[in-house]
């Protein structure tokens, strides 16, 4: 009896347990977004100060630096891909990977060789599944990126950039990551990090009279130590943005999963009620039919 009913009840129970999990994950993600966003905001003064300093150097001196000069011929380009370590975040990882694929396609069509630097277990898994090589990988701390990680990545890519192309060095570095636009939107973004395009600082009130800018020890050395720091802060910012975007994406995905579970529960409850009612109706008609038969037999 009630086989149908039992199946429906089982399905309702499954949907309920799933919903409990997704709901919990949604709440966790929501609370983590706040923290991740606060970190993005907290790191803004640093990146703003560095950007100002870099543009000051660019504006008040005309020194050439290896990191800002465009190489004559670009043979190899590096792509740094920032993904998360965990899934359950909707299109978060796939959209950034797709963007990276499009970029590689473009670079290859320009006759450049592409090498990859991967951040996050998802990117590593994606590459391992396709048996594709990558230069270096970082996993395990994309949820809560520390500055040390940004520093490590910056050092590695800078080292690759400064190496000769014949030595396996790269001439161009791109970074692909998810930018946190709002709670609802996270857009994948491609930024060419090196060679640097230093955006000229805002011109002073009178361009002919520039204040005498003093550099200690000298312009070259200042630039030497400033530009890597600038790269670091750009990477750090990208990491933080990506972490915040991941939490937002998780929250969104888990919210729709919970909503979906809700809908399933309602649908199955209706079906279960129907099945129960049908069973009762059948039992009644059986009893009535039996009684009628008894009366007729008398």
């Amino acid at each position, binding site marked *: 009896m009630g086989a149908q009913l039992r199946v429906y009840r089982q399905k309702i129970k499954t949907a309920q347990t799933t919903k409990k999990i997704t709901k919990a994950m949604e709440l966790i993600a929501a609370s983590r977004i706040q923290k991740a966003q606060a970190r993005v905001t907290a790191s803004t003064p640093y990146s703003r100060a*560095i950007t100002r300093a870099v543009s*000051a150097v660019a504006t008040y001196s005309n020194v050439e630096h290896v990191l800002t000069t465009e190489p004559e011929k670009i043979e190899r380009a590096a792509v740094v891909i920032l993904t998360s370590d965990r899934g359950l975040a909707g299109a978060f990882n796939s959209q950034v990977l797709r963007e990276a694929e499009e970029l590689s396609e473009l670079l290859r069509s320009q006759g450049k060789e592409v090498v990859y630097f991967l951040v996050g277990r998802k990117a590593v898994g994606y590459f391992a599944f396709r048996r594709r090589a990558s230069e270096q990988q970082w996993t395990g701390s994309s949820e809560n990126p520390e500055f040390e990680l940004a520093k490590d990545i910056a050092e590695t890519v800078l080292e690759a950039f400064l190496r000769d192309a014949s030595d396996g060095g790269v001439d161009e570095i791109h970074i692909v990551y998810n930018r946190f636009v709002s709670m609802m939107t996270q857009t994948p973004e491609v930024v060419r990090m090196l060679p640097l395009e230093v955006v000229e600082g805002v011109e002073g009130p009178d361009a002919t009279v520039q204040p005498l*800018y003093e550099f*200690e020890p000298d312009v070259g050395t200042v630039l030497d130590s400033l530009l890597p720091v600038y790269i*670091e802060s750009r990477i750090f910012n990208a990491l933080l943005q990506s972490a915040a975007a991941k939490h937002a994406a998780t929250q969104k995905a888990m919210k729709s999963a919970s909503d979906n579970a809700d809908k399933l529960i309602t649908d199955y409850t209706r079906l279960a009620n129907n099945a129960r009612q049908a069973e009762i109706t059948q039992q009644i008609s059986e009893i009535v039919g039996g009684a009628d038969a008894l009366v007729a037999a008398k």
Partner: protein
Amino acid sequence: MATLNVSVVSADQEVWSGEADMVVARTVEGEIGILPGHEPLLAILAGGEVRVTLAGGEKITANAEEGFLSVQSNVVQVVASRAALV
């Protein structure tokens, strides 16, 4: 008298900011003192203390590592990947 607008920032947060009368920091070439009206400057810091003297004579000390010091029209920024108040 003009005062300096000082901020000390590290990679993940702003450590301190406010008005001050004088800033003393260690650059790779030696200690440098900044008073209001200092010419624009960009210097690499050697790890060590940055001392900020407030208007009342009170002193604030911060440790800064791997960073630089920028001065422009009485705005002083001490920017370091790691910095902490002592």
